[in-house]
């Protein structure tokens, strides 16, 4: 008997049969239990998260220069945003960054996870080696390292020199600067890779055993067991890498020296927010920018969730 598993709906509201049969009292006790379980989160929301978030939402409708009180200006910040060329540049740069680096990074992560999951000797050494770049990914040292690779005298140009091509300074060329950051993001595929490995490890062994007993080939098992059961993790990585890449900051800040240069070709959206908040002291505008980003991410995430119905399989 082959294990064919169909994708099932994303979280729905209907409780499983067991709980329902206990009727009203069961549901009430679930409500109580749920809120008890969530009490740390609720406290955190009240104390640490909600107030600052609501404050920043309020600030987005104000002119606030950090040192004096905020002054309400209504939609001025948003109107300004629409006409702000650098806003559109940063949106374009960030979107390009996300569109290219997320799939690439996840592809590498998944590929390597699958390869490393096959019980090779030295597995943990490889895993550590591939994860090592992620440890360094957002550190100050990266700027120095990246210049050693992509600078005028860097490794890439040295390699190109061997085959007779004269390379330029990749970091100073607006056409290529963003690509160095995309490569940086892909280089740190270790994080999603580790998550994929954890997900692969969680697939129950007996499924493979049963399938092998039935004579299924490696490819068959891969297609019908591994992939479907991995989809929640793929989905997780996709969502979080997308959100994370939209919010990417340190890499651009460190490699471009905080300018987003050359000519704003690496002006990540959050770098622009940072410049407005911490250099211009224009906190109202920075908050407005932040909430626009949040809306954009929320829309994209909602789309992902809707589409997930068609390809993500949950065991419950």
């Amino acid at each position, binding site marked *: 008997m082959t294990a064919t598993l169909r994708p099932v709906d994303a979280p729905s509201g209907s409780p499983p049969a067991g709980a329902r049969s206990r009727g009203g009292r069961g549901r009430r006790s679930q409500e109580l239990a749920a809120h008890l379980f969530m009490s740390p*989160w609720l406290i955190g929301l009240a104390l640490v998260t909600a107030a600052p978030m609501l404050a920043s939402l309020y600030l987005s409708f104000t002119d606030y220069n950090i040192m004096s009180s905020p002054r309400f200006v209504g939609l001025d910040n948003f109107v300004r945003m629409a006409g702000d060329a650098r806003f559109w540049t940063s949106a374009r740069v960030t979107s390009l960054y996300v569109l290219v680096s997320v799939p690439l990074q996840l592809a590498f992560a998944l590929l390597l996870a699958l390869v490393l999951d096959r019980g090779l000797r030295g597995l943990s050494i490889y895993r550590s080696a591939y994860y090592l770049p992620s440890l360094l990914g957002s550190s100050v*040292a990266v700027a120095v390292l990246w210049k050693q690779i992509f600078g005028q005298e860097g490794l890439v140009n040295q390699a190109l020199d061997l085959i007779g091509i004269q390379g330029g300074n990749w970091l100073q060329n607006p056409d290529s600067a963003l690509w160095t950051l995309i490569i940086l993001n892909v280089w740190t595929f270790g994080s999603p890779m580790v998550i994929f490995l*954890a*997900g692969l490890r969680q697939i129950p*062994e007996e499924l493979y055993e049963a399938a092998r007993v039935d004579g299924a080939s490696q490819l068959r098992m891969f297609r019908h067991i591994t992939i479907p059961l991995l989809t929640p993790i793929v989905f997780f990585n996709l969502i979080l890498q997308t959100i994370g890449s939209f919010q990417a*900051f340190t890499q651009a800040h460190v490699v471009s020296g905080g300018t987003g240069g050359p000519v704003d070709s690496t002006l990540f959206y959050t770098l622009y927010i940072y410049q407005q908040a911490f250099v211009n002291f224009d906190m109202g505008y920075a908050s407005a920018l932040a909430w626009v*980003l949040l809306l954009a991410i*929320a829309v994209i995430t909602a789309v992902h969730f809707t589409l997930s119905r068609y390809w993500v399989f949950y065991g419950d």
Partner: protein
Amino acid sequence: MSTSTLDVEPSLDGRSVRGPAPRSIRRSRRRGAILHHGVLILFGLFMLYPLIWMAVSAFKPSHLVLTDPSIIPTELTLENFVDGWVVGGFPFWVFFGNSVVIALSSILGNLLSCSLTAYALARLQFRARNVYFAIVLVTVMLPMHAVVIPQYIVFSNLGLVNTFIPLILPKFLATDAFFIFLMVQFIRGIPRQLDEAASIDGAGPFRVFRSIILPLMVPALITTTIFTFIWTWNDFFGQLIYLTDSSVFTVPIALNALVDSESNQGTGTLMAMSLISLIPLLLFFAFAQKHLIRGIATTGLK
């Protein structure tokens, strides 16, 4: 679900991840393995080149690091480690200690609070569930720089600046929504039948959580541990704004103080101390990932 494979008797009796395969498959696997190793090593070298460069530079005299960037050093010295060891009047092990305190506390906080929250969101039925889940996601989506100032004001008015509390307390309050979401996804991969079986036997939600779900989500917990450790170890901005006294500096702040954008000194010390700072991370990761393997062997069902 049309198959009854999952009705199979649970029989994971502590054996290794992949059971012994037939001999013929093992032989062809060995040939493939050599090819695999070759590609993996080559790829690994590509990946590690920047880090190798960094390691070599750590041993070069500081003024040569950038002016003579070849990966084959002409001179070797330990001066960068000596020069970089003391920052702001304190030896580096103080910063390691501070970072470890924050990291371990954060791990504890995240493991406790995020698992509780994730269980409720993934398994319990309550009216507000979808709303809460949406809020969890929204907290991930707002860029840090927009909330950092209001958050700082809150903690500053509470007089908690220059302590570790603003960095640790939120972890106990499930503010790292990333891990909540991670655990939710893992929990949803655990068959509900197990919960139901337990609750039919009279177990309440907490019992189910502790005895069924928690053991089965060990890979998620390990992953949370690893990532929390690494992210708090590398968290520069949050630690920078709350910690002003050199004695409570953490590793990223200390590293940042080694090189100033105004002068060109100190790159060698930056490379040296960054290298040293990687060691605890690497050790931690190597240690924790072994448990990632062992974790699966103990997820047998009671």
